[in-house]
């Protein structure tokens, strides 16, 4: 039986992961962490005298709270053996990377979490969700990328992606640890039913206007939030460590994805994108473009998931597409294959 801690469980992907693990008979205890109040969907999980799910509010990016949690008596008594790191991605995505002591929030979280996992003897497994936008994108509308593809270490990369790369490298450094099994899942744009999109550097957040590069319409690899939860569950069960690409079978152009998810994409010529980026930086606004407009607005990618299929036994089971809802409106839906 497994005892699992899930971070950012109050956000959409975290909720989906908790739900998936809750229905797994092999999971005995789920210790859910979140920065907000427990989601209403957790009421059923938290009910009863001895619930399998425990929810705790915590700021994961700060040293003291996370240290206190890992050394608290209830946490020690819970004998957690697996930690699932779900990064912040929900409503707070628009402020995804405030700097904490020189580090972005995501980087600080992942560093503190890894440090505490290494120090806690009962924890044997760490499963982290990372982003596939860490790869260096070669020119072209669509390119196939594998786990061995080069990372984007360009100093001019946009802060959001830089935070993902830092986070990726922090977990990457412990992949060969003998005591702690580390699995890093690199996921592309995560799509949930209802037209929600997560972990895309320019589309995440509330629907609104987004710029894209004129003359470019990169292919975006997609994965359903349900498939991400399945991949996490597979990673907690399978005794392998390493880095795995997780993606669904769909790949659509950025303009189509923006339309599906209720965004308005405004094509701008390259020089104007650079000017928008420079203006945002001058005004102190967190730029969503990166110097020169960001390669992710020009070049697309799809992911090679064969390693995940072979070693984790993961294959996507959900298709993503438009479906007509009961009120007659077309909405983005995910459906089981």
């Amino acid at each position: 039986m497994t005892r699992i801690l899930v971070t950012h469980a109050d956000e959409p992907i975290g909720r989906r992961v908790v739900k998936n693990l809750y229905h797994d008979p092999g999971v005995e205890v789920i210790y859910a962490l979140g920065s907000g109040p427990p989601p209403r969907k957790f009421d059923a999980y938290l009910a009863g005298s001895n619930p399998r799910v425990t929810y705790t509010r915590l700021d994961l990016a700060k040293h003291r709270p996370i240290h206190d949690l890992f050394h608290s008596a209830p946490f020690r008594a819970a004998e957690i053996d697996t930690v699932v790191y779900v990064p912040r991605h929900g409503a707070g995505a628009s402020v995804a990377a405030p700097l904490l002591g020189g580090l972005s929030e995501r980087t600080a979280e992942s560093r503190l979490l890894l440090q505490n996992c290494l120090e806690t003897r009962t924890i044997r497994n760490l499963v982290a969700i990372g982003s596939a936008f860490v790869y260096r994108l070669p020119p072209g509308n669509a390119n196939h990328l594998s786990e061995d593809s080069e990372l984007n270490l360009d100093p001019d990369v946009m802060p959001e992606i830089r935070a993902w790369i830092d986070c990726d490298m922090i977990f990457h450094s412990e992949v060969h640890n003998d005591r702690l099994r580390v699995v890093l899942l690199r996921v592309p744009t995560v799509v949930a039913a209802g037209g929600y999109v997560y972990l895309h550097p320019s589309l995440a957040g509330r629907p609104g206007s987004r710029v894209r590069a004129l003359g470019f319409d990169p292919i975006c690899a997609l994965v359903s939030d349900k498939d991400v939860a399945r991949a996490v569950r597979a990673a907690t069960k399978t005794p392998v460590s390493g880095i795995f690409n997780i993606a669904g079978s769909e790949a659509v152009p950025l303009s189509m994805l923006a339309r599906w998810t209720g965004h308005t994409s405004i094509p701008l010529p390259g020089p104007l994108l650079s000017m928008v980026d420079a203006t945002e930086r001058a005004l102190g606004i967190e730029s969503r473009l990166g110097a020169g407009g960001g390669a992710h607005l020009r070049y697309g990618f799809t992911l090679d998931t064969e390693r995940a299929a072979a070693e984790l036994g993961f294959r996507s089971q959900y298709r993503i597409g438009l479906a007509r809802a009961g009120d007659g409106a077309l909405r983005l839906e995910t459906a089981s294959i």
Partner: protein
Amino acid sequence: MSEIESPQAVEEIASPLAAPGRTLGRDPFDDLADPDPFEERLDQLEARRADSPIVQHRARKVTAEPSLATKSTIRRAAAHREDDLPSRDNLTRLFGRRWSTTPPLAEIELPPAKGLIDRLLNTDERRVLTALAHLVEGDAPYDRFGYSPEAMKAAFPFFHALYRLYFRVRSEGHKRIPGEGPVVLAGNHGGLLPFDAAMAIIDVALNTDPPRLVRAVVDRWAGSLPWINIFYARVGQVVGTRENFAKLLDDGQLLLVFPEGVEGIRKTIAHRYRLQKFRVGFIEHALRARAPIVPVAFIGSDDQSPILFDIKPLARRLGVPVVPITPTFPWFGPLGLLPYPVSYRIVYGEPLRYHERFGPEAANDSRLVRYLANQVRRSVQLLIDRHHQ
């Protein structure tokens, strides 16, 4: 439209090393004119490969081992019983190699024609395009590389008109293209704009059954051009990265490469139809993916925009492959880049099945790979020499 060459003629072209005299005519890259000592080494390699456990082990290692940086380690977890875990053998069988294929034309049921594009196409062409649409999995609008059957259908009438009326393409040897599985077409490159690739796409689609989609491997530079990058992807072309190449061959697709690279389109009129040095990456991938290589000669592409001079310093400064001076460019502005209405001839040679002689581990032998690339180059040059006269 096209004519099939007799089998006798095929044999003559097929084995350049077996041809009497082995003269290469005006071959400018003849550093391995006498390959006999190397042939001995090849024979040794081949003999060693057969049933050698060490080599077999090395082959497994070459094909399966990831880099140290992302190598995943298999460990036994005390918490799980072993029979709960997915078996790697079962997974391999379950998720093993599955090639993307198209159905035979006879099996295609055409929907009623609707719209302008359908009226511009005849029944056979519509069948071909419907068959090619099967390359996209399910009812998705795009495949993983951005190929869109709808975009292909929209572009087809224009390029087919070029094929029939403007370039008046004649072709031969389609039967030498394997009907399924991974194949690499390796041809000469010429002309400022890649109409040779466009004509090959139309030619192969119309003359193979089941129809095959040629996926031309384009230069990275082309992938960074606004709108061009979208158009290329939507009609099935891909940028030549290592991962793209390997993935497409794993999918059993038909790739068209121009191993000369941009040197091919830089050739001045004095060097037309004289092949430049071949790159070797396509040989490595073909060996690893067990794919035959079909040499292809494009006659006419070097005449479509004859380059008088190439201003290389200006090209470097502008970041473009070539700044040409042609009889029409730059005198007529961008219109001067348009190709002349030359007659095209496309000849497919006999497949070179190096993968049957060498294992995947041979892809790591740089001297062998260079040698094989030169062999392919000779085959293409011979096809050109034979048919250009």
